[in-house]
């Protein structure tokens, strides 16, 4: 009798990936009409993208939710998972995603690990100029730079970004979905500024704001900038 040998080896690993998170709004039909408008303008918007739908702000019945899934798949939007839905609604159709909750329960299960969840939400202070080519990523909390941020440098912060110098590089505040994050600088010459994914590039910055001390925040979907003279 020939002995059976495994011909394939099974391997798995943990990984985190970028996905487009879409937040539907009620009434769902009006929101779907907006999606259609978007798709008529750029038909390839969702093409090849992994999409997560976030319904945590909505209380949907099972029927509405399943109907939403059908409507989205009609538009060839491929749903990777759903966030914030009542598990009973999902009905096994799409994977149910729980942001960060798994990690937290694992952390509390391990007593050796200090519960530093609150301590990690801290600000990062950089007491030197940020040079071209340097990338500073601080996913939780504010970043304060005492010095200038050079052209070609990039700061990514979960919270607000404060630059006590000339801002010439790229800054992305509220990168973790925080729409209340702000950007402050002593002198604005930035290549790009973004808050919670809404960005403007240097060409879109009004001339009277250039080289001025400013603060920027998010007003709806638009970046508002005012001088702080």
């Amino acid at each position, binding site marked *: 009798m020939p002995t059976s040998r495994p011909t394939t080896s099974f391997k798995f690993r943990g990984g985190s990936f970028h996905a487009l998170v879409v937040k539907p709004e009620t009434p769902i039909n009006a929101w779907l009409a907006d999606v259609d408008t978007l798709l008529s303008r750029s038909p390839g918007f969702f093409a090849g993208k992994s999409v997560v739908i976030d319904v945590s702000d909505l209380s949907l019945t099972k029927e509405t939710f399943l109907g939403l899934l059908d409507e989205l798949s009609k538009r060839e939007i491929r749903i990777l998972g759903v966030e914030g839905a009542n598990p009973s609604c999902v009905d096994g159709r799409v994977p149910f995603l729980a942001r960060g909750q798994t990690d937290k329960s694992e952390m509390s299960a391990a007593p050796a690990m200090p519960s530093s969840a609150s301590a990690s939400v801290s600000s990062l202070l950089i007491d030197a100029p940020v*040079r*071209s080519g*340097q990338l500073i990523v601080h996913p939780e909390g504010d970043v304060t730079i005492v010095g*200038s941020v*050079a*052209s*070609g440098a990039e700061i990514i912060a979960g919270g607000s970004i404060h630059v006590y110098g000339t801002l010439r590089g790229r800054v992305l505040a509220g990168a973790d979905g925080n729409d209340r994050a702000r950007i402050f600088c002593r002198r604005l010459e930035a290549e790009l500024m973004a808050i919670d994914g809404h960005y403007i590039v240097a060409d879109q910055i009004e001339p009277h704001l250039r080289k001025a001390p400013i603060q920027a925040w998010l007003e709806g979907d638009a970046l508002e900038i005012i001088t702080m003279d």
Partner: protein
Amino acid sequence: MAHVLVVTSGKGGVGKTTSAAALGAALARGGERVVVIDFDVGLRNLDLVMGAERRVVYDLIHVIQGTAKLSQALIRDKRIDTLFLLAASQTRDKDSLTDDGVERVIRELRPSFDWVICDSPAGIERGASLAMRHADFALVVANPEVSSVRDSDRIIGLLDSTTEKAKNGEPMEKYLLLTRYDPVRAGRGEMLCVDDVLDILCIPLLGIIPESKEVLNASNTGTPVTLSNPTSAPARAYNDAARRLKGELVPLVVPSDKNTLLNKLFGRRAA
């Protein structure tokens, strides 16, 4: 014990090799023992600028690979007997440079010289990275234009993160040498002015070398400008920079367009 100085810039063609040769010659003329090392393996030029191209037998790569002794590879300058050159290889590439090899060469040079000047290649790859790694301090060469200044800023970031000093948590001293400065064009706003450059780079200024055809003439004749025409404006600027390197207090004057010939001509016409 030598001071190990890297002359670096990021961008090519801003005057690293010219400045390394001119400063080396200026220091050596003042009696200091100086060796200038060409790290631009594969595209060597320092031998030409120093007029030693016909006397290169062994080079830096031979020493690193152990096929020649350091004493065999050091080329003494014909004009100043305290000035030496360690040439780069033209037939190899920068992969022939090893971290251990470079570290050993610099360690062996330290006791017998006052200054070891490492002439870095352009770019941020292996050659540039090894030229700066074992330096005690850095001279960042920049032209008054935006691309050069941005590349210099990138290099300053690397000096603060990838050098041995930075890894040991010590501050890496950096000085700016602004080359090819044309006061007339800066006055007209066609070039960045000195304050603009200092505002972006935030490092102390060692010297400003005015744009001059003397510099090109000197390179073409294989004589550092501080030797070929010591009274010319760029030579005086390099000599002052060399004295500042030695710790002397030499007042730094930003060249202005007040007294240039061109301005006088225009001034007269306007009057």
